[in-house]
């Protein structure tokens, strides 16, 4: 009788403990929610990111799905993507929809700081981890928000430091003493401009003589350039989006004004796009960032740049109205981070996702350089070298040559007279 009661007791304990220890059933698919802008002012940076991300999704699904450690098997990815048309109001609604209606497992932000900005508080409120592809605004990253990490670009407060380092170092030696900073008033470029101003004031070697913001919608810079020229600065830094840089470089050439050092973000970052609209002569000797689409890093996971470019051209042949550039790399690179996250996360719980993403910090090397996160989720690896668009030997084309820092440089900068 006593042994029967003991057996019954053990059975009850086993029955009670069983479900708690069992693995949850593996889902039939991993749902990834993403936004993109097929039209509007941010389409030219959003679509390449989205196309790069889709390329990764297609590759993964073609191989049977993503390896998910939590379930010990490959699971296909289902991409749920909506078009926010470059509208922050629409994006806010769609971020909410992805979280509350579609119940996505992983949430990927649209490209750029403007369209990411509305997703940050929504993701935080719903405790949904946000894979921030290229929203670099410094305000997104705070110690009280564990639900975000920046994937593919360095945070704006550290991104431009090679510019100020170069001007304070090599530039000052060659007589650069004054700088004008003209920026578009948005999280992305506004933060970079403020950071640069702070760097220059801290170093004390180059004086900021002009510091003005213009609306991101600005499409004409003639009077602004004339006003800057009146102050005769040695260096001019224009920080804007693609459309801003096109207008600025065209107006600079038209104005006939010359400065010893001119920097724009997208002359190098979206070289093909800018070259098509501005022409080679207006871009010659312009300084810019050297993005991963123009610099070969050695990855420890995923395709290298050459392989990626080949895969890109296979999926999006020339003439398909899809531009290859840094943003294409960023989209694919975000996919690689998700790939490694799924391969190491304990579950699909959002804090486990957080832990898995942060576990990659310093370990993951992709075609976009080394992935390093600060504890608040800001990206502090992947800092792009400073480059210059220099004439390619005797040919009617320009090379984006890394000129600073010395350990990454592939050539020497040429300053104007």
């Amino acid at each position, binding site marked *: 009788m006593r042994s029967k009661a003991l057996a019954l007791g053990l059975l009850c304990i086993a029955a009670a403990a069983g479900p708690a220890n069992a693995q949850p059933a593996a889902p039939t698919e991993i749902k990834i929610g993403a936004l993109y*802008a*097929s*039209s*509007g*002012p941010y*389409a*030219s940076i959003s*679509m390449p990111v989205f196309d790069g991300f889709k390329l990764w999704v297609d590759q993964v699904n073609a191989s049977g799905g993503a390896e998910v450690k939590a379930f010990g098997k490959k699971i296909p990815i289902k991409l749920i993507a909506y078009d926010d048309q*470059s509208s922050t109001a629409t994006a806010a609604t769609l971020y909410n929809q992805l979280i509350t209606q579609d119940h996505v497992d992983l949430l990927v932000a649209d490209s750029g700081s403007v369209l990411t900005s509305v997703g940050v508080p929504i993701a935080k409120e719903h405790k949904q981890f946000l894979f921030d592809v290229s929203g670099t605004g410094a305000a997104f990253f705070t110690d009280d928000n564990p639900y975000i990490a920046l994937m593919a670009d360095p945070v704006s407060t550290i991104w431009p430091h090679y510019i100020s380092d170069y001007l304070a170092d090599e530039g000052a030696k060659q007589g650069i003493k004054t700088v004008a900073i003209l920026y578009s*008033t948005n999280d992305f470029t506004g933060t970079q401009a403020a950071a640069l101003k702070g760097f220059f004031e801290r170093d004390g070697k180059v004086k900021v003589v002009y510091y*003005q*913001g*213009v*609306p991101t*919608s*600005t*499409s*004409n810079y*003639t*009077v*602004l350039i*004339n*006003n800057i*020229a*009146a102050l005769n600065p040695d260096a001019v830094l224009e920080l804007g989006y*693609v*459309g801003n840089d*096109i*207008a*600025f470089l*065209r*107006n600079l*050439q*038209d*104005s*006939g*004004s010359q400065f010893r050092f001119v920097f724009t973000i997208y002359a190098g970052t979206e070289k093909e*796009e800018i070259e*098509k*609209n*501005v*022409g080679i*002569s*207006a871009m010659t000797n312009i300084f810019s960032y050297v993005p991963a689409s123009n610099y070969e890093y050695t990855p420890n996971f995923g395709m290298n740049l050459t392989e990626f470019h080949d895969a890109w051209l296979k999926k999006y042949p020339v003439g398909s*109205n*899809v*531009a290859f550039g840094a943003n294409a790399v960023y989209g694919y690179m975000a996919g690689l981070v998700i790939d490694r996250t799924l391969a190491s996360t304990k579950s699909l719980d959002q804090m486990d996702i957080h832990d898995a993403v942060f576990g990659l910090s310093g370990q993951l090397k992709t075609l976009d350089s080394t992935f390093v996160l600060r504890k608040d989720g800001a990206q502090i690896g992947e800092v792009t070298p400073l480059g210059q668009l220099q004439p390619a030997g005797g040919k009617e084309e320009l090379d984006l040559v890394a000129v600073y820092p010395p350990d990454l440089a592939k050539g020497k900068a040429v300053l104007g007279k």
Partner: protein
Amino acid sequence: MLTGAIVAGVVFGLYYTLVGLGLNLVFGVMRIVNLAHGDFLMLGGIAAWWLFSSFGLHPLVSALLVIVVFVLVGLPVYYLVVPRLLRSRDSEMLSLILFFGLSQMIEAVTTIGLGATERSLPPRLLGVGPMILLGTRLPKAWIFSAAASGIAVLLVYLYLYRTRLGTLTRAVMVSRDEALATGIDVNFVSAVAFGISIALAGVAGVFAPFILGSITPNMGVAINITAFAVIVVGTLGNPLGTLLGGIIYGVSLMLMQTYLSSWANLLPNLLLIAVLLVRPEGILGRKVRRA
């Protein structure tokens, strides 16, 4: 800097005169607001880009072609849309909705067909380097577009005041019903005005890559807002008032860029509010606007 801003503003504003001229002509004749005006401008720019990249056609030649083609496009669009609209009880309000829809359609179709990226024409086509005007460096392209705008204003003026069709157009502008009662073919007169309006937008589009840097399928809405501010300032329904409205907008924009650059994009709205509060009939308007 002040002189430079004013000189640049006058020349730049002349381009916006060209942008607003067609919009105002349509409003003057038909009392409808063509919210697809900016999209027709974008199509003009796309046409110039396509004609150059496919056939190497110079933009000034493209401008002439665009005038012909856009007038021919404008006529059937008018007959398809406007007469029905004018028969409705509140044609002004309905025109906002209808042409907004048309604007969205044009943007969507262009995006699907060509992608969302920027397109432009080489700056060298209208001359590289500055032109000095009253001590101010201005792009040569600005001078070309200002000249084109001046010619357009002159031609519209000659059309309205020196041709029989122009006289009939002015009669329709004064009173559509009375014009109809006197036997004027109001629909034909309006269709021609609509075609001219679309052609003016198309020509402004040809110069857009040189003035605005590039063309994108989504540029129409922003252009409409600015063009609307220009014609309200100058006086709704008065095509010649657009000249003044354009110059006021241009000078104000350049002064804002010089002294308060971060707020420059508020300018069209500020001008609209200021004019509607202080002089709702517009600067060249009569005491009571007919609209």
